[in-house]
């Protein structure tokens, strides 16, 4: 029990994932600044932002809205993100949770933050927030099928293992899954799914700073918004870690391979940042078509290739 709490709250759950995710979000902002020939923020910036929201700012609750739902949504989002962080990072660091079939649970856990954003936005009673929420749901419908197909193909490629630990063990014996043609084909939609899950440009449709001015999060202030920020930091670490675990051969905490693991995560985040900086925002219909037709087609080709052993 105590051990599980430690896994959930400290390492590799809430605290560890949040701090690493905060550093990654600094990396993301710094690279963005470099791309635009700016200096960019200081290393501690994500933590200043988080602590300012948590300690200094007041919490405003909407007058016409459901206060309980509004305030519990960020808590739900944060707990969903930290449980999935624990479930993904434990096997990634080579600690087996002894839990077969965790990959399916992870798939569901990863949608909890998005769903909570939607509930929180709808509970706030703000019209802009509800437009943001409806866009978030549409986006979710768009990429969720692709993500599920990617998971299924990964399971198929690693000899029908439905435990993350065994998928990593398989890759350590037979080489990373991205080493094959179908692996490369899977990596492309996976990156776009992560991009959409993180709500980064070109899929920042729900947040839409320019026309929805914050979209789903428009009414949040103070500590609840700090929780949303922290959830976003965790997701920024957990989703690239998931990509590394599923296709790039996993992470490791021993000797020089630490460096190699860090580089893998940084490379995935760098890729996400560069996509975010070189693309305009899509309309929600375009985004759905992008996933339904093109990304699903890629995954289907990958499935066929996997059957023929490529």
């Amino acid at each position: 029990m105590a051990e599980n709490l430690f896994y959930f709250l400290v390492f590799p759950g809430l605290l560890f994932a949040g701090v690493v995710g905060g550093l990654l979000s600094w990396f993301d902002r710094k690279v963005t600044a470099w791309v635009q020939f700016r200096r960019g923020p200081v290393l501690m910036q994500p933590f200043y932002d988080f602590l300012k929201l948590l300690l200094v700012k007041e919490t405003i609750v909407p007058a016409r809205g459901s206060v309980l739902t509004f305030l519990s949504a960020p808590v739900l989002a944060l707990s969903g993100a930290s449980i999935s962080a624990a479930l993904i990072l434990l096997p990634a660091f080579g600690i087996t949770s002894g839990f077969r079939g965790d990959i399916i649970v992870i798939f569901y856990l990863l949608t909890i933050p998005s769903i909570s954003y939607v509930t929180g936005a709808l509970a706030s009673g703000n019209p802009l927030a509800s437009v943001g929420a409806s866009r978030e749901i549409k986006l979710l419908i768009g990429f969720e099928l692709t993500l599920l197909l990617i998971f299924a193909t990964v399971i198929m490629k690693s000899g029908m293992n439905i435990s993350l630990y065994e998928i990593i063990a398989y890759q350590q014996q037979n080489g990373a899954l991205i080493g094959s043609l179908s692996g490369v084909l899977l990596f492309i939609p996976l990156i776009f799914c992560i991009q959409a899950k993180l709500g980064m440009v070109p899929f920042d449709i729900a947040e839409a700073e320019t026309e929805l001015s914050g979209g789903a999060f428009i009414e949040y202030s103070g500590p609840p918004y700090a929780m949303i920020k922290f959830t976003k930091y965790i997701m920024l670490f957990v989703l690239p870690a998931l990509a590394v675990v599923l296709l790039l051969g996993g992470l490791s905490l021993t000797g020089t391979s630490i460096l190699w693991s860090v580089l893998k995560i940084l490379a995935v985040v760098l890729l996400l940042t560069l996509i975010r900086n070189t693309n305009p925002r899509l309309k929600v219909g375009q985004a759905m078509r992008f996933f339904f037709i093109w990304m699903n087609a890629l995954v289907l080709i990958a499935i066929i290739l996997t059957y023929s052993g490529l």
Partner: protein
Amino acid sequence: MSIKSLCLQKSLWLFHFGGASCNNCDIEILDCLTPRFDVERYGMLLVGSPRHADVILVNGSINKRARSRLLEVYEQTAKPCLVVAIGACGCTGGIFAEGDTFAGPVDKIIPVDAYIPGCPPKPEAILAGIVKLVQAKFG
């Protein structure tokens, strides 16, 4: 310096309220975000919702219609928040001060923490004003 004021000072999020401005001040404010001036290195970000804001930048003359909006935006902002009046219009009313629809300079409507005069003030002046405000508020 306490951790609270350190964090607030290092992460000021700006909300831009344009009154009946001639648009020059708006452009100069946006200039502060460009690569040459880059306020993000001080941790400042332009946010779209007053709920997220720590600083309200008000520019342009405030006329009778804008007055109630300005009050509402100020009340919607999560406290503590600072108010900066930018440009001659924001500080005193400037060339619009004697207009029919003019409803008073910003400090008649909401408390103002810093004034940045100029028509329009240069981005350097805006940055200098905000740095002085931070120094005065947080030592």
